[in-house]
C-alpha cells in the first residue's frame, strides 16, 4: 500500500531564511502523528508545503503516491487541512460555508455537509452566520471542512486552540476514532504536550528546519533508570538498599516512598531484595521520560514550545 504521505529531502528557502533543511518524513499508514517544535522551527512551513499553499525550493512531497507538483488537484483530493485559526466566509452561515466548499470540490450530495455539522456538534448552529461563531465553534467547523472530501490524510494545525475543556475532551475522542476506525492518518501540530502525549501514536520533533527525532514516545525516551517503591517504612527500605550493587542512589520521597536510581539492577531484583529483607512492597512505579522532557532534551530549554 502506498504511504499516506512521503516527504523527501524537502527544502524551503525564503529570501533570507532557510526555513526547512532537507526534511524527510513518512506517514506509512493510519495513525496519529504529532509534529512538535519550537516557534519558528518550520512546522507551519511544512504543513503549508504539504497543503500546497507554498512551493518547495527543493525536494518532493507525495500524497497517497501522487507528487503534489505533478498533479496538485489529485494530490489534494486525499488530504483535508485545518490551519491554525481557520477562516471562513463570515457573511455565510456555517452550513452554507460547508455547502459552498462541497460545491467547489464538485460534490453534488449536500448531505455530507449536514452530517459533518452534526458530527462536530454544530447542527443546531448550522444556520447562524460564522461571524457570530466563537473561536471554539470555528475550530469545530474547521474540522468539518477538513473532513468534507473524506480524505486519507488530515492535517490539523493547533486544533484545540480556543476550545474549552469539554471541546478538548471531544477532540481527544474524535481523533483516535478518525485514525483507527476510519483508517486515516492525522498529522497533528500542537503545543499542548500533555494532550499530544495522550493522543499521538508517533512523534516528529522539528528544530531549526530539520527533524531531530521521530518515533514513538517510548522509543524516543532515554532508558529509564529510576524506580519509585511505595513501602510501609521508607527509612527501613533506604537502609535495605543502601549498599546494594548496581544502585547508584537511593532517595526518600516521603514517609512511604523511596526512589532508587539503578542503571544496572533490574526492578525485579531490587523488589526481591526488599521482600527478602522483610519489607512489603505496596506499589512499584518505573519513571519514564515524559514527552516534555524528551522535547526539552532534544531541542533545548531556551525555546518556546509551539
Amino acid at each position, binding site marked *: 500500500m502506498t504511504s499516506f504521505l512521503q516527504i523527501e529531502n524537502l527544502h524551503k528557502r525564503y529570501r533570507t531564511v532557510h526555513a526547512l533543511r532537507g526534511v524527510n518524513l513518512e506517514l506509512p499508514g493510519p495513525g496519529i502523528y504529532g509534529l512538535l517544535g519550537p516557534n519558528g522551527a518550520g512546522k507551519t512551513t511544512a504543513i503549508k508545503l504539504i497543503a500546497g499553499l*507554498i512551493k518547495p525550493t527543493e525536494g518532493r512531497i507525495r500524497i497517497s503516491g501522487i507528487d503534489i507538483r505533478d498533479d*496538485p488537484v489529485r494530490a*489534494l483530493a486525499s488530504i483535508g*487541512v485545518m490551519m491554525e485559526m481557520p477562516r471562513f466566509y*463570515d457573511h455565510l452561515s456555517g452550513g452554507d460555508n460547508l455547502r*459552498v466548499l462541497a*460545491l*467547489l*470540490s464538485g460534490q453534488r450530495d449536500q448531505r455530507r455537509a449536514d452530517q459533518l455539522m452534526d458530527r462536530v456538534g454544530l447542527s443546531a448552529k448550522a444556520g447562524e452566520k460564522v461571524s457570530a461563531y466563537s473561536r471554539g465553534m470555528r475550530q469545530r467547523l474547521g474540522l468539518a471542512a477538513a473532513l468534507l472530501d473524506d480524505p486519507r490524510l488530515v492535517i490539523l494545525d493547533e486544533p484545540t486552540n480556543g476550545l474549552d475543556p469539554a471541546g478538548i475532551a471531544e477532540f481527544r475522542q474524535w481523533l483516535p476514532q478518525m485514525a483507527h476506525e476510519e483508517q486515516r492518518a492525522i498529522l497533528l501540530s500542537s503545543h499542548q504536550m500533555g494532550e499530544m502525549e495522550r493522543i499521538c501514536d508517533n512523534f516528529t520533533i522539528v528544530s531549526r528546519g530539520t527533524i531531530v527525532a521521530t518515533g514513538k514516545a517510548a522509543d524516543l525516551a532515554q532508558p529509564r533508570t529510576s524506580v519509585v517503591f511505595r513501602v510501609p517504612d521508607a527509612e527501613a527500605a533506604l537502609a535495605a538498599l543502601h549498599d546494594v550493587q548496581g544502585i547508584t542512589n537511593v532517595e526518600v520521597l516521603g514517609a512511604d516512598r523511596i526512589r532508587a536510581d539503578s542503571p544496572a539492577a533490574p526492578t525485579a531484583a531490587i523488589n526481591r531484595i526488599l521482600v527478602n529483607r522483610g519489607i512489603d512492597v505496596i506499589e512499584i512505579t518505573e519513571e519514564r521520560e515524559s514527552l516534555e522532557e524528551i522535547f526539552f532534551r532534544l531541542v533545548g530549554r531556551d525555546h518556546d514550545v509551539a
Partner: protein
Amino acid sequence: MWREVCRVTGAEWLRARRSRATLTGLVVYVLVVGILYFTYYLAVRRSFVGIPTGFYLCGAVLSAAVTPLAFIGVLLIAFSLGREFSSGTIHLVWTRPISRLGWLGGKVLSSVIHLKSFLVLTLVIVITVAGAQFGFSSLMEKDYLIHSAGSLWWNLLLVIVLTWIALIATVSIVCVPALYIASPGVTITVCVAGGFVLQLAAGWEVLRPFLLPTYLSSPLAQFVAMSKGLPLPEEWSTLTRTCLLGSLGWMLAGWLWAAWIVKRKEVLN
C-alpha cells in the same frame, strides 16, 4: 448541468450570500442610471437643437454609464480575489482539490456575468424610461432622422456586445493587481488611479488606439452620433474590428499574466 454552471459562475455562492450590501449596491446603481438619464434629458432640452429622442438618450446614458460599469467591474474582481487573500479564506479554497486556474476562471466568469447583468439592467432602465416618456413607437419608426430604426437597434446590440467585451478585458487586467496586492481597498485605489492615467494618456493621439478606454467609449460615441442623426465618424466594420482586436489583446494579456501569478503564488500569511 445547471448546478455545474452555478458552481463555475459563483451564482450558487451569490444565492447563499443573500447579502444586504449586494442589494443596496443594486439599488444605488439603478438610482445612478436614473440620475444620468434625467441629467441628459434636461441637458438636451436646454442645448440640443430639436427634441431629445429616445434613441439618443439610450446611447448617451449608456455612454455615461460605462465609467460606473467599469468601476463596478473593478469592485467585483478586486473584492472577489483580494478578499480571499486579505480575510485568509484562500487557505480554505486552495487546500481543496480544485485547480487554481479553474478557481481564477470561475472568479472572472462570475464577475463578467454580473457585469453583463448590470449592462442589461442599464439598457432595460433606459429603454423603459425613454419608451414611457416618448412612446415606444418612437423607438420603432422606420426612418429615424437619417438612420433607420432597424440599423439603430442592430448597432445598439453591437455596441452592447463590444462594450461587454471591453469590460471583460478590464476585469481580466484588474486580476493582475488584485492578485499581486491581495487587498481589495488598495487594488481599487490603484485601479482608479490607473484609470485616470489611461484617460489622460488617451488624449495623446499616438497612444489612443492601444488603450482600453478607447474600446470602451468609441462604439458608444459612434452610436450617440448615429442616434443624433449625424453622419458616422467611422465605418462600423472598422470600428468593430479595432475594438474587438484591442479588447481581446488586453483580455489575453490579463488572463495570461493572472494565470502566471496564480500558478506561482504562495500563501505566506
